[in-house]
């Protein structure tokens, strides 16, 4: 069972038209495995891909991963059958492409209510991640993020967004700086996670490092990846370092000690520890634990 706090450093797209890749994908270190019915599946293979995903998730479900199915968009002819298949397969999460308004999310959420009921699945058990892929989506990001309790994250897709904005897509990514900020703001406001764009040059691992560093600093919780080579690099940026964990634990210990002594203000190494610092420390420890790191003398 996953929720808004589940670790989502990396989400690996795997095409549902490639059975071998689907079988191998769970062996890597991605947090989310996203079986894709949308862009990577040719139109003529949508039905076969649905069957493959259904059987894979139902009978060969990867362990210790968040299982996600990306369906085709609401306005496509594939959507209804995709949703029927996806809900009945019972993934942790459905990833909805090209979301532009809160109404769409409400509509899909209602559809999921109905399908869950028909399939005998506990109501509201499947999460949603909404892909924001257009200027309209960015303008409505705050409402979209808050539109359903099923929402666990928004994910930005740069290629479609820049096309909708008549922008040139660059590696440095200055053109999507504002959209990235908006997305993180909307997610923080709704208490859900923010997932960053794909870095599409799979051979430029230094570029990926640079991009991931910036993304992490901007507040994102993770990043979508399109190749297994990208996973460990991205994970490393969204996993707290030993130094960060040590510092966070010292902050929390100082606060605890202050409370015991009934102190109003607590300082560490001469610096006042205020609420944001505590929040960041708690977040660091939580992310470290979620990533499987043994924290603070755990065995």
């Amino acid at each position: 069972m996953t929720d808004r706090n589940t670790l989502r450093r990396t989400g690996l797209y795997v095409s549902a038209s490639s059975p071998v890749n689907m079988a191998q994908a769970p062996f890597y270190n991605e947090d989310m495995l996203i079986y894709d019915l949308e862009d990577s599946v040719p139109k003529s293979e949508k039905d076969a891909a649905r069957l493959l995903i259904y059987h894979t998730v139902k009978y060969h479900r990867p362990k210790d991963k968040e299982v996600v199915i990306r369906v085709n968009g609401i306005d496509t002819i594939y959507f209804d059958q995709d949703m029927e298949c996806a809900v009945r397969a019972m993934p942790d999460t459905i990833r909805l492409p090209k979301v532009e308004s809160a109404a769409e999310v409400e509509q899909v959420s209602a559809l999921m209510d109905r399908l869950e009921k028909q399939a005998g699945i506990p109501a509201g058990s499947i999460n949603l991640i909404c892909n924001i892929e257009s200027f309209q989506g960015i303008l409505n990001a705050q409402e979209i993020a808050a539109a359903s309790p099923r929402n666990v994250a928004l994910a930005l897709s740069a290629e479609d967004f820049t096309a909708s904005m008549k922008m040139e897509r660059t590696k440095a990514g200055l053109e999507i700086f504002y959209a990235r900020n908006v997305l993180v703001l909307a997610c923080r406001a709704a208490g859900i996670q923010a997932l960053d764009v794909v870095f599409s040059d799979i051979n430029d691992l230094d570029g990926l490092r640079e991009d991931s560093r910036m993304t992490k600093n901007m507040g994102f919780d993770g990043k979508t990846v399109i190749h297994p080579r990208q996973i460990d690099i991205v994970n490393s940026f969204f996993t707290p370092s030993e130094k960060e964990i040590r510092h966070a634990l010292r902050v929390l210990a100082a606060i605890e000690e202050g409370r015991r002594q009934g102190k109003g203000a607590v300082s560490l190494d001469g610096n006042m520890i205020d609420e944001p610092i505590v929040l960041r420390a708690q977040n660091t420890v939580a992310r470290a634990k979620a990533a499987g790191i043994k924290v603070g003398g755990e065995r």
Partner: protein
Amino acid sequence: MAINSVGREVPEEINGRKWKPYQGPFETVPDQQVKTCRRQARLIPGESKMRSDLKAAILASGLKDGMTISFHHHFREGDRIIGQVLTAIRELGIKGLKFAPSAVVNIKEPSIVNFVKDGTINRIEASGIRGQLGDAVIRGLPLAEPVILRPHGGRPRAIEAGELEIDVAFIGASASDCYGNANGTGGKNACGSLGYAKIDARSARQVVVITDTLVDFPCVPASICQDQVDHVVVVEEIGDSSKIGKGAARQTKSPRDLRIAELTAEVIAHSGFFADGFSFQTGAGAIAIACTNYIKERMKEQNIRASFVLGGVPAAVSSLLEEGLVDCIQAVQSFDAVAAMAMAHQPRMVECDNSTYSNPHNKGCFVNQVNIGVLGALEVDTDFNVNILTGSSGEMMGGLGGGPDVAAGADVSIVTLPLFRGRTPSVVDRVFTLCTPGETVAVVVTDAGIALNPKHRNYPVLKENLEKTSLKLVSIEELRDMALGITGVPKPMECTDQIVAVVEYRDGTLIDVIRQIRE
């Protein structure tokens, strides 16, 4: 027929030739004098060893019907020696030869199969017969006797035990002088180490050196020495340099292979044997090269230097010398042009002959001293037995190589393979052909998890060290279940009763046989 200690039914005699069934990796104790076919000779000052062409050399060697000829496989798929020599032999009308190269790689032009069909060759002994020849053999190519497959260490053992008597050794060398001093580092078709040719040179009744680059006397350095050489022939081309090895063997980009390589490097780093002065052998497969690069990173990070690296050498290994990360490399063969050049220029890149490398019945081979051995495989079973010969559709996919030798000798032998290939599971209940006994395999690393062999001598230390890490340790049965869960259980291959090849363990006992595939 007898059942050996790994449960395989093996013959005790074929055509008067006797074998003992395999009983364990170190159960056979040799007690005889080392044998050789090498003859004394008399060379009068001024007498020439140069022969006008291959036919003249073959005639001068005294090659007759039914004799045994040998070759090395250092030119790999670029080899043009074997084809030229066999063609000359055919034209001379010599028949019924035993073909005993160190290995047969996939040589297509001309196909070795045709020399079997026309009767030039009627028996084969090698480490592997990959490619057209192997596929034809496994489908019943008519030979006088089943093919004898031996691991690299088994070949010098068999030669010194008198089981493989080489009448004429044809040794390709990229540079030679007129008196037979020769090497693999000079000339236009350098292949690097001639480690597999050395045992033939010192054991054969007659030795013919074949080169396309004749250098002034004396050729220095000399991997093959004049005192062992009877004849020297110059031909136009000894090989196709683009196939012998161009540039450095590149690192794979396959995420699956990289993952297996990275996990293997993690196992090595936490095995308890990864410390200053450690030693290893990784080889030249895609996973092996990637693994070498990962180990190299670890060595730099932890300031660890290796005492030696062993075996076949690609650029990834030879670069360790250049970066000062290893004291010496014991090179039995060189896998690419960079490694071949390093052989010429790096004094601590030592040309290691195949007997010193892996012969279990000499007074100490290098594999006994190696800490870590990384091995490739086609299949592994729940007893950790390894198949490196036969593929799922009855093709001859590989050679025994040094795998059984390194597994037996190394403190930690690590078999690396993907959980499944295409629709074929790699972890199974029972391997089709048993090549390396499971009792000599310490660890199996797949992309889906790592299994330790509870019956391996170093299991306690590996278990203790690896359980402290976050590496995913699973049982071999779990790996099998995962593999079969994805691929389903394949229908077993159907074979006739006809034995087409016997698989010798390194000590000369029979570990398995290969039967003809029923079409």
